[in-house]
């Protein structure tokens, strides 16, 4: 399998599921997650795969089966006022393929997303952090409490409509 990270045949960017699937047909993640991807992006030598927020656990299982066995990071981006507002980014590494992929799910204010702690226990602290700083609830998390801010804190600091400075 040609390595898409170092393979000079694919230096340019591809946007959209069809274009990425056609250009990177050999990529382990594309093969493993083909049925779940709703959108895809190959940009700056990084693969970003968008999945529906209700299939995130299945997508993580599929990524793990395809060899992406190490969960690095779970974080969020607040695209306020664009809807759906939150982008949850999962950075997943393959220790054997030496590649990383980014799984992305979008969800609106008030929506929930399933916790992936059943797939990788390492997601525990990261999901608590996203819950604390963005206010995104994860269903099925063993103990979803604030991790950075005090328990009685109001608001979620990393939201774009939360001020950087000043009094609350």
């Amino acid at each position: 399998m040609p390595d898409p990270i170092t393979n000079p045949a694919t230096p340019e960017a591809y946007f959209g599921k069809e274009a990425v699937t056609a250009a990177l047909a050999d990529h382990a993640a594309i093969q493993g997650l083909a049925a779940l991807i709703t959108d895809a992006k190959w940009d700056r030598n990084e693969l970003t795969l968008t999945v529906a927020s209700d299939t995130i656990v299945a997508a993580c299982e599929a990524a793990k089966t395809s060899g992406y066995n190490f969960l690095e990071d779970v974080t969020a981006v607040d695209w306020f006022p664009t809807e759906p507002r939150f982008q949850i980014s999962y950075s997943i590494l393959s220790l054997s393929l030496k590649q990383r992929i980014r799984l992305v799910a979008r969800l609106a204010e008030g929506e929930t997303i399933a916790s992936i702690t059943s797939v990788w226990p390492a997601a525990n602290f990261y999901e608590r952090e996203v819950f604390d700083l963005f206010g995104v609830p994860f269903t099925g998390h063993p103990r979803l409490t604030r991790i950075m801010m005090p328990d009685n804190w109001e608001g979620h600091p990393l939201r774009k409509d939360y001020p950087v400075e000043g009094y609350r």
Partner: protein
Amino acid sequence: MAFLEEVLEPGVEKKRDTTGATLAGFRTAESLVPDKTAEDMIIPGVEDVVDESTSGHKPHGSDPVSDQTMILNMGPQHPSTHGVLRLVIEVDGETIISLAPDIGYLHTGIEKTCEAKFYAQVTPLTDRIDYLCPMTNNTAYALAVEKLLGIEVPERAQILRVLFNELTRIQSHLVWLGTHAMDIGALTVFLYCFREREDLMRIFEAVSGQRMMTSYVRIGGLALEPPADLYATIRKFLKNFPEKIAEYEGLLNNNPIWISRLKGVGHLSPEDAIALGVTGPPLRASGVDFDVRRDMPYSSYEKFTFAVPVSNGCDVWARYIVRMEEMRESTKICLQALDMLASMPEGRIVADAPKIILPDREQMKTQMESLIHHFKIVTEGFAVPAGEVTSSVEAPHGMMNYYVVSDGTAKPYRVHMRNADFATLQALETMCKGKLIADVVAIIGSIDIVLGAIDR
């Protein structure tokens, strides 16, 4: 005692299969501690530990006395938690039944602050995240922004980045060794380690003007040309350093207290390490052969030859051995970098991008165009093409990733730091369960955490 003997033979490096690690139940048989400990909660929270102590086991004050357990608060103001880490521990006598870390005491909202700064103004903030390895933080951030901008850093600057990243690794490992040994009770090692650290601090001061918060690695290159005599100073330090490592080992390796406090303590199987997101020396000490510098090279690490120390010990002792070997390998990398720099012609240490990188002082004072660029960069920053990137470097504590999202403006839309310490802390409960309170101190020392990197 059979277990203790088979724990580790330094130098014996067996490759372990890291693909398809068995995660069923998340704990392997060897890490399960029978009878006394609480049932497997997989990274419990503080409330879990408290609930568990009042339901499953008989709380303090009940009868008979032998069945009572106690909740013990360790930290946040405790010298051996290496910062403001609070642990809530349920103990039966001195045996740990369950344990939960409570963090956030040092949360300063750096990620939020980054969103209000220009790209170049974020660099000094990154120093303060993992404050024992500022150069590594700077490099990880610079790599991410350079990837967004699509600019190429000159080879000389890349080699210099490697040189200072490795010196920073030695510096960070020296702080780890000194404090870890002091936690165990060996105070002399701390004094020796800080003696060598002082040399490194002077090198950092000579190159950047700052001992700790260097901000030396900038977007597109480096801040300043190193002083003319600095390479000789570094070479002299590196020449003497291997015998200093031998000196530390001479103090520790045959010390019976050191051996019995470290060997067989804090077992972390490779399957658990992967499932819990552990990276860096603790991962390699669990037998997983992965190092970002070798496996996913950045900043021209592919031009260097070095070994990645791996151990199958899975315990505190193995982590000690791995880090000591890493210091030796870092010394070799630094010497190679100095040789490369000596054979390389003088040249730029910043990329050729006048609209992104501040012109030097003389140009700014003499050339109209440079003055305009300087004014524009300082007042308006520079726009970065929209996109999202992840950069990954091997920091002294493990894998450090910077996730930077740009919306096309001069300020980052989102900066997220993935520090090894945050994930490694999740493995603390697995390593401590069923051990004694004194072992917690040894295990915290062995995972080498910095609370600045955890709380951000």
